[in-house]
């Protein structure tokens, strides 16, 4: 797949390198230092940094503002956009705002329901869904058109991504759903955190059999456990995440003070395993509020140094 945009992430993938992305959650306040500090911790170990968009529906600094900051630092942001909070006017407007700062990556999401966050009594928008947001960005980029039909002066040049969760139910439509996102125009996928390797590989296999893996770059999502408690929480409380019992047991059987180390070790083993799996084009390392672990994980997984592309 040849690169169609100036996105560094796209170029790295197009050159056949395994890409590495990570993510930073903006602060619950207006101190941009939080972002610059997190970004400085990981910048040499990743190709692009996602900035989450009011994740788990908790109000935070805007993803766009934090992405602009990364851009000003000379880094490569991935603008996450959820369809929960903005209608088609606001989404298109923010896409243009991002494009004006030459932000070249976008991740199209529907977003967690607002009942999980700090404004459970608020409205949700969902004027369009994540599938339709993919179409919208592609329309704006490829045809230089707004949804309303008007022409865009200096259209956005964005590499278009989306999430995929091979572990959500029902499993049988997980590959058709990927096919649907590809048909909508998605170019890269960052998956939900993978713990159940077998199921993930089965999903990839079915996608490969349908010829989908030549049409999209799949970045496998990994998240290190900080503790046995976190492993249990992910297993029992987080919708759409599957943690096999043996991983929970492995964390629980580790003495408390050694658990963070064990969690990182598991994560590195997972990456090393997945590197050999056909169709995996890179990794999305989600070290939730634990960004300082990203350099070690990337290094020990043999993914450092990061390639440079023109």
């Amino acid at each position, binding site marked *: 797949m040849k690169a169609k945009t100036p996105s560094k992430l796209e170029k790295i993938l197009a050159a056949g390198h395994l890409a590495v992305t990570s993510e930073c959650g903006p602060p619950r306040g207006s101190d941009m230092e939080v972002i610059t500090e997190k970004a400085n911790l990981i910048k040499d170990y990743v190709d692009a940094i996602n900035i989450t968009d009011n994740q788990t529906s908790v109000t935070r600094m805007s993803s766009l503002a934090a992405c602009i900051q990364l851009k000003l630092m000379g880094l490569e942001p991935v603008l996450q956009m959820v369809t929960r909070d903005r209608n088609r006017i606001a989404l298109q407007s923010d896409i243009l705002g991002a494009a004006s700062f030459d932000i070249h990556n976008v991740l199209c999401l529907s977003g967690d329901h607002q009942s999980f966050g700090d404004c459970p009594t608020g409205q*949700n928008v969902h004027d369009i*869904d994540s*599938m*339709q947001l993919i179409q919208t960005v592609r329309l704006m980029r490829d045809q230089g058109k707004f949804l309303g039909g008007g022409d865009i002066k200096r259209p956005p040049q964005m590499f278009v991504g989306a999430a995929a969760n091979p572990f959500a*139910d*029902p499993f049988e439509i997980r590959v058709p759903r990927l096919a649907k996102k590809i048909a909508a125009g998605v170019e890269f996928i960052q998956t939900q955190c993978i713990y159940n390797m077998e199921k993930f590989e089965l999903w990839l296999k079915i996608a490969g059999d349908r010829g989908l893996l030549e049409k999209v770059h799949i970045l496998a999502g990994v998240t290190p456990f900080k503790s046995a408690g976190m492993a249990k929480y992910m297993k029992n409380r987080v*919708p759409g995440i599957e943690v096999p019992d043996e991983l929970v047991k492995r964390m629980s059987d580790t003495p408390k003070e050694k658990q963070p180390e064990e969690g990182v070790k598991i994560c590195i083993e997972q990456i090393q395993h997945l590197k050999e799996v056909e169709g995996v084009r890179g990794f999305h390392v989600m070290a939730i509020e634990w960004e300082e672990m990203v350099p070690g994980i990337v290094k020990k997984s043999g993914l450092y140094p990061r390639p440079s592309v023109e």
Partner: protein
Amino acid sequence: MIVADRKPIEEIIEEVKNYEKILILGCNECVTVCEAGGKKEVGVLASALRMYFLNQGREVKIDEETLERQCDHEYLEEIRDVMDQYDAVVSLACGVGVQFMAEKYHDCPIYPGVDTCFLGATEKRGLWTERCQACGQCILARTGGICPVSRCAKRILNGPCGGSAKGKCEINKEIDCAWELIINRLKALDKLDDYEKIDPIKDWSTDRAGGPRKVVREDVQE
């Protein structure tokens, strides 16, 4: 039908506590079926209010009436002759009935006695669930007869989202994932291939977004 639920008695008392002559007005349609505002509930509310005023040592006239419908001029006219006997009405109709009453009897305060909830069905006695949001442009033909606009918490037209687990919605394990229902239904209809058709961006101008709506049928107007 329109599904409503009873308002807390304290809230109703707060609204009507200063009146002397109150009419409790029920409706014989949807709110009767969902046991929120029919003749029976009119009686229950009237008794509760009488009890309240008695305890306050006040003599307040509380009358009961239930109309065939409150969303029709014809039935609302039935009480015109008696309306001057009251200084307030508590309507147990849905929001439509309350407003129609207020439009018709302009100088009489009308208070809602129920909360209007949704367009739904009776699953069993005491359990009503939502089925429609009256978006004004029905898509059920494309979704196996199950509506994602009213039954998906994110009204996602190309679902399910990543939060669907074991057939349930991420917001509540009691709520079915609409998209799981749609997929099962498409399977039953042998139309699972239709799942891969991308549903286009919806025109919400026929929904609430387009402003107050009207249906005009000149062919049936007199």
